[in-house]
């Protein structure tokens, strides 16, 4: 491309280092099968992280994704149990995501509520709705229909999940870097008022981004319902934090305007590989949050150093 960008290279280097390290730490790590497992199980996180990346790039945050996921899981499980056609379930799922996303977007743009608080509110409301919908526990009965094929199915002996991840990232990459909408997303995050003066329809872009985030979260919920075959209302706890971590590790700035889809993908891989490695090496469950935290801290520090280094300025940064 244009200029040599160390930060982009840096995250790739980190990924490579992690993979090399993994191959040393565990014999079973470096195999096609294992990597297909890693990607296969990161479908839901991938969907949510892409949505979160867009939201972070416009300078917002979406804490409601985990709850939206849970709600769509139980709803699609209920429909699947009732034998509803997969296409209909898909539509219902999209409608759920769209609605919550639109509510988030409207709250943030029209009532000027901070994104954190607005989505914290919808997070609680949607979680409550999920439990009210199932009456508490998981929906009884297992789904044994073609609905499960959406994640269990295989094409050329490769599981659909891997295609989903690839398609989602390519699509998101094209949208973000090549379309007018993508540029406007960056513009809104980089300077909202300026973007407005330049004719960017800031509110529409914001609402659209929250809707995308909502829909992706809802789709992730549908996939979970298909994957485990039940409607589990406890799904998705803490997913918002995982998605934010993925984005931050991938170099998406929480202050908006910065971040790429490639970065998000690398972030996703880093986080998924850490999780995979901890299982493979049978690291004590109790110690896992510590290992996780320290790795994320190191990565975040490296990324932040890198970004600071590029900013040449006369005045000392406070």
């Amino acid at each position, binding site marked *: 491309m244009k200029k040599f960008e160390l930060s982009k290279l840096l995250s790739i280097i980190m990924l490579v280092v992690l993979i090399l390290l993994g191959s040393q730490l565990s014999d079973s790590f470096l195999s096609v099968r294992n990597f297909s497992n890693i990607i296969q199980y990161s479908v839901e996180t991938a969907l949510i992280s892409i949505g979160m990346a867009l939201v972070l790039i416009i300078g917002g945050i979406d804490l409601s994704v985990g709850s939206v996921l849970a709600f769509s899981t139980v709803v699609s499980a209920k429909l699947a149990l009732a034998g509803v056609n997969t296409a209909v379930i898909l539509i219902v799922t999209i409608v759920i995501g769209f609605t919550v996303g639109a509510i988030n977007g409207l709250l943030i743009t029209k009532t000027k509520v901070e994104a954190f608080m607005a989505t914290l509110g*919808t997070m609680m409301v949607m979680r409550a709705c999920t439990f009210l919908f199932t009456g508490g526990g998981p929906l009884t009965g297992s789904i044994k229909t073609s609905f499960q094929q959406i994640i269990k199915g295989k094409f050329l002996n490769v599981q659909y999940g891997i295609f989903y991840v690839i398609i989602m990232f390519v699509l998101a990459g094209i949208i973000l870097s090549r379309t007018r909408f993508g540029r406007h997303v960056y513009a809104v995050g980089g300077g909202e*008022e300026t973007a407005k003066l330049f004719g960017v329809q800031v509110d529409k872009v914001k609402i659209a981004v929250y809707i995308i985030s909502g829909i992706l979260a809802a789709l992730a919920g549908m996939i979970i319902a298909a994957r485990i075959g039940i409607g589990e209302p406890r799904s998705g706890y803490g997913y918002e934090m995982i998605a934010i971590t993925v984005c*931050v590790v991938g170099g998406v700035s929480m202050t908006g305007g910065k971040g790429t889809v490639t970065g998000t993908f690398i972030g996703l891989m880093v986080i998924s590989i850490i999780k995979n490695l901890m299982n493979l090496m049978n690291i004590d469950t109790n110690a896992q*949050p*510590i290992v996780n935290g320290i790795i994320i801290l190191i990565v975040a520090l490296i990324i932040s150093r890198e970004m600071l280094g590029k900013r040449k300025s006369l005045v000392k940064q406070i």
Partner: protein
Amino acid sequence: MALQKNTFIKDKLILGIKEYMNELSIAALIVLITCISPLLSSVFLAGDNLLNLLRQTSYTAIAAMGMYFVILIGGIDLSIGATIQVVGMVSIMMLTSGYSTVTTIVCVVLIGLVIGLVNGVLVTFGKLQPFVVTLVTKSIMDGIVLVTTDGASISGKVPESFVKIGTEYIGIFPVPVVITMIVFGITFILMSRTTYGRRLFVTGSNKVASYNSGTNVRLIQISAYILCALLATISGVLTVARIGAFQPSTTHGGATGMELNAIAAAVIGGASLSGGKGSVIGALFGALLYGVLSNLFPLIGVNSYLQQLIQGVIIIVAVIAAGRNSSSSKIKLRKSNGGSHEYST
């Protein structure tokens, strides 16, 4: 003459009312709920219940006041729930192995100090987002608690003097309530009467300007995280003193939910996550409103999920209302590089 002398007193009054508009309306709302509560439950106003309510509220209230400092300077602290856990664990471990109440409290306060210092230093010198830093420290502290306890609860002989902190009364008030009032008094004076408070406030409003006018911004920032962690420590000690034993809880719910409750309380009380707004009273009242509702709902028999739903709606509506209240008539345009300009012409 731009200003008449006789406007001086009026000005002081307006200054006061304007400063505490949010707080006044929350207080009014709490009073209102209390007044209509007999219609909903005869039990709510009973003496015991109100004291219980205050005690239940005090843990959140102290944490919310701590959170207020961090939010004031435009930060956030997601690690207070984990801090409360660590503090609780260490307290019980020390007490059951024979250390005195005083030694234990001194130790956990030091631990709180260190946690705050780490958060503050990572945010200030590490140039990291407070959200990321405190999420990481939370994760690490959760891990430490699990590794140390293996997930099991810790109990044993705890000195009577320690348990009293959580269970005794001073006059008619439970000790935690009294401690909440003392903490409130100190933080209130800190914010309204000291230069430190003023510097915190303006630093939240504009970090660069504060630096340029002679504030040690880094120190202020770190101190806010320390204050937050210290108050979380107090909240942790009070919680564990009431129980006299420690139970790890690192997943959702439990003490881990405390950070979100504290943030919600502070914001309902008028603080803004972008910094430079809000007051200690606001955080206190926000927590009280929260406490009143979560006490009242089970009394009138609201289902637990419905309670959560209502809490979510309350947060949204309260924040909308706070936003409406404070956004002045002026239309502000944010400039690309962070400043803002009004419609000056």
